[in-house]
């Protein structure tokens, strides 16, 4: 009988990440549950990492790979600061993240990332990735075990109406920062109900012209 391999270098620690971009702010959120199989490893693990002054990344997937990825990006950012005497912009960091992921195209980082921040004009930006670095700038995104539940809901709330529809509809009025935060809380409360890997606590990071701020909200622990 041919021997089948039963050891995998990867594990999925679960969890969900969301990011929403506004006119002059960006909200990045992730739950704090870390699991393996049907067990919980900890209820209090942050999936969010500030890579630069105006770039925040949230990653779900295999947290060992996520941590390794965060360290590589932090080191690269330090080199950039030494060479250019300034912080990396969010679009620059977005490209760097993509390149870093593709570098390991044939042994990928098992990390599903959302990068949020402020672009060079101070407007909110969100970049969404797959495991090997394919990325796109969007207005909102979610990744991770609860993303299948959250993404359709965000599309319903935030997606601009198609320009082909008649009668012509106005584009969705931009959300205020408080509305966006409330929307994120709603997303997670709902995802927690049906996704077993999402719950415990929600960590919300808000980036705006005043700087960066972090809030927490309790989620169901079952």
């Amino acid at each position, binding site marked *: 009988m041919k021997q089948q391999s039963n050891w995998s270098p990867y594990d999925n620690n679960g969890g969900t990440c969301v990011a929403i971009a506004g006119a002059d702010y960006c909200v990045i959120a992730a739950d704090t549950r870390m699991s393996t199989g049907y067990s919980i490893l900890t209820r209090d693990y942050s999936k969010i990492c500030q890579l630069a002054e105006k770039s925040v990344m949230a990653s779900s997937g295999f947290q060992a790979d996520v941590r390794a990825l965060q*360290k590589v990006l932090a*080191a690269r950012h*330090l*080199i950039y600061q*030494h060479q250019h005497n300034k912080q990396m912009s969010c679009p620059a960091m977005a490209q760097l993240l993509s390149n870093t992921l593709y570098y390991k195209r044939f042994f990928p980082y098992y990390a599903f990332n959302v990068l949020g921040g402020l672009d060079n004009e101070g407007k909110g930006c969100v970049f969404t990735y797959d495991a090997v670095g394919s990325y796109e700038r969007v207005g909102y995104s979610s990744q991770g075990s609860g993303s299948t539940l959250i993404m359709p809901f965000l599309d319903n709330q935030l997606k601009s109406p198609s320009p082909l529809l008649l009668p012509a509809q106005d584009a969705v009025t931009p959300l205020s920062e408080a509305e966006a935060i409330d929307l994120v809380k709603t997303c997670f409360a709902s995802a927690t109900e049906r996704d077993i890997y999402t719950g415990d606590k929600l960590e919300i990071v808000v980036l705006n012209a005043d700087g960066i701020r972090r809030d927490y909200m309790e989620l169901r622990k079952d």
Partner: protein
Amino acid sequence: MFRNQYDTDVTTWSPQGRLFQVEYAMEAVKQGSAAIGLRSKTHVVLASVNKAQSELSSHQKKIFKVDHHIGVAIAGLTADGRVLSRYMRSECINYSYTYESPLPVGRLVVQLADKAQVCTQRSWKRPYGVGLLVAGLDESGAHLYYNCPSGNYFEYQAFAIGSRSQAAKTYMERRFEGFVSSTREDLLKDALFALRETLQGEKLKSSICTVAVVGVGEEFHILDNETVQGLIDAFEIVGEETPAPEEAAPAADEPAAPDQGAPADEGAAPMDI
């Protein structure tokens, strides 16, 4: 020093047991423009004179940030200094990537010294023509080291290198015993005074000097021009010429790190001094 038959190769000893090429490299350091460093128990200050080639050109960069907790001032062949700074930055990044903690200053200077020594023992290389004053803060406190082209390094309370550095050394020799308990402001004042000594009468202004600080709770950063000019005016260091008109600059009380460009909350390694 005069030319002799033992000075062509770095790998040739003289009968007196000297390596002339290495000594010539140290001469290059003495020809560079001055750089000084002083330390207290909690802070280290580096200052250097920036001479531009001409009025039309910019100044040579002589002080480099190596990591949050380490910086270096150079004298001599600044190109060699730039390359060594890049090496030091790389070492610091790799160390903190592997060990998740800042590279202790003493380790970095040993690595730097070993790198310099290699160039004194290879026939196809030449010694680095730059002296480095390495200022840093780690768990064992504030440090100031001098690395020279020979591959030697020493720790100092205060030191000066480059042209006319003896004047600064003389100034500091009289006062260094007090440095260990100096406040940050006093250390900056002494640095600027010592720097002025090397200028030999020329007016000290922020356009011809660079000052950098690292300390407890204060990341290594280079002070910007307005802050330095404010310090010069506040300490009335101008010298023999009539003092510059008082700018509406900050008073002698140094404003906190934030408006000097680098946030102090990035955290040098926590100190228990």
